[in-house]
């Protein structure tokens, strides 16, 4: 009954582990891919008010014009990045939809899409669903960064595009402008496209985030994906946006209008409000995440667990090599023994069985307790003494 293409998707072991976590009580979760903050009140209030006012209809396919204009202004003032609100910006149902649209828009059967791994879980499967072939580029030897050299090595004549994601889920690593410039040169040289998922851009802690399309000469070859979920703690509202050339955005809009029609109007109105008023809340959240990052890095270091220092987002990808456990085994045992949930590394690439992803989108209090429990767990595994 089920198509072969769908049958091939996702390893089932992890699904079972997720169900196990969801069925358990009093778990401290470091396994969550969303902020622990609730959407700032003024944004929620705007959504409620719009419902009271009776804004319950469809919007135009591309999304409310004022929201697109708001995004245009935001990108211009924050990054000097200009996209025309009429035909270069599309409001999507989260970045997830934007990614799906972008891939379906550019892929011809058997086109290859380069995906630096470890990567966010959906890049590979969505590429396959669009009829493309995901080519995974292992970045662990370069501290989880895509370098021009390994990028160059992975390109052949079937290569169509590269997916970038920075700051990255699951590693938190990001790139300085100079590093991005080197990547860009390779993309231009081979006339590839770039899909740049920058949903965590606002959560960059040590330097300024550089959007890929702001680099000279690459804007027309880039689909820039961003959204409101992470910076405004609005994951459940499902609002993202895709920006690119008129050609690519109108092609993406074709699919969007048949499959989604438009993003929910309440969420679009709330997202507009977020752009107007929530800057202070974003800064506050960012400072809080940065403190949590320091706490978790220090804690992991004290436990002798290695990781690459993350530049942004709220994840650390931690090596569990010295435990000699598989990542699923580690996660299951940690859950059973100490009630701490983490995500096994294999979720982010089949070769990352000696890693786990820790999310520090949790209160300082929870993080401290979780670190204690991981310490106890390592003692139980006889890896550290008291």
């Amino acid at each position, binding site marked *: 009954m089920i198509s072969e293409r769908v049958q091939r998707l996702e390893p089932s072991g992890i699904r079972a582990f*997720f169900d196990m*976590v*969801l069925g*358990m009580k009093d*778990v401290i*979760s470091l*396994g*969550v*891919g*969303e902020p*622990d903050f*609730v959407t700032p009140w003024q944004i929620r209030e705007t959504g409620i008010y719009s419902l009271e006012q009776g804004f319950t209809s469809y919007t135009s396919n591309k999304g409310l014009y004022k929201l697109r204009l708001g995004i245009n202004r935001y990108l211009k003032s924050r990054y000097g990045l200009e996209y025309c609100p009429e035909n270069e910006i599309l409001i999507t149902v989260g970045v997830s939809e934007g990614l799906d649209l972008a891939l379906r828009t550019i892929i011809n059967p058997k086109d290859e899409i380069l995906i630096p791994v470890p990567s*966010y*879980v*959906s890049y590979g499967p969505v590429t396959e669903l669009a009829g493309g072939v995901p080519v995974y580029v292992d970045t662990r030897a370069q501290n989880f960064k895509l370098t021009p050299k390994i990028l160059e090595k992975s390109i052949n004549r079937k290569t169509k595009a590269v997916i970038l994601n920075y700051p990255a*889920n699951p590693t938190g690593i990001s790139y300085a402008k100079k590093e991005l410039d080197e990547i860009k040169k390779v993309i231009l040289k081979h006339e590839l496209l770039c899909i740049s998922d920058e949903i965590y851009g606002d959560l960059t802690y040590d330097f300024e985030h550089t959007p890929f399309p702001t680099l000279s000469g690459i804007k027309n070859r880039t689909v820039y994906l961003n959204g409101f979920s992470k910076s405004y703690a609005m994951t459940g509202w499902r609002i993202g946006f895709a920006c690119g050339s008129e050609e690519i955005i109108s092609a993406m809009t074709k699919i969007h209008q048949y499959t989604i029609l438009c993003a929910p109007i309440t969420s679009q109105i709330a997202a507009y409000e977020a752009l107007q008023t929530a800057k202070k809340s974003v800064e506050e959240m960012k*400072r809080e995440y*940065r*403190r*949590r990052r*320091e*706490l978790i890095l*220090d804690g992991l270091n004290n436990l002798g667990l290695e990781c690459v220092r993350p530049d942004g987002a709220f994840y650390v990808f931690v090596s569990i090599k010295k435990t000699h456990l598989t990542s699923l085994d580690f996660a299951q045992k940690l859950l059973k023994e100490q009630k701490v*949930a983490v*995500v096994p590394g294999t*979720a982010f690439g089949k070769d990352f069985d000696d890693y786990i992803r820790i999310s520090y989108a949790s209160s*300082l*209090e929870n993080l401290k307790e979780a670190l204690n429990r991981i310490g106890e767990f390592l003692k139980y595994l006889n890896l550290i003494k008291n």
Partner: protein
Amino acid sequence: MDEILEILEKDGRTTPEEIAKITNRSLDKVKKAIRKYEREGVILKYKAIINKELIRDEDSEVRALIEVRVSPEKDLGFDHVAERIYRFEEVKSCYLLSGTYDLLLIVEGKNIHTVSQFVAEKLAPLENVRGTVTHFLLKKYKEDGVILKHKEENKRITISY
């Protein structure tokens, strides 16, 4: 505002060691900064915010907000008369305001009777007090930025990508 103050305002029990860790500063600097704030009176006190709604025992107290109209004194303005008022231990807070009255007091007492007694016998007879309006507090919803409710359950699903 210094990040140290922001952290302590959120959780007064955060230790200097933890603050040093999460702000990436040296422990010595953090300790010095805190001592300085304490000395200068920037940090006045560390205390718990207690949700008294949940402890209805015999010592529970009533609170009233009292508007006070006073006549200022020559050369001393409001400060002198304010001091005569805020020295009473029943007065927990005292503010000088613009508008139709001058001082706003937060007064605590064992019950309505003791608060009324305080107003009638101590506050109102003061020479410079021209009038008072007492509002008894019925319910506290939010205090010092903290919403006073039972701990909210976590609404996030416990694991996601």
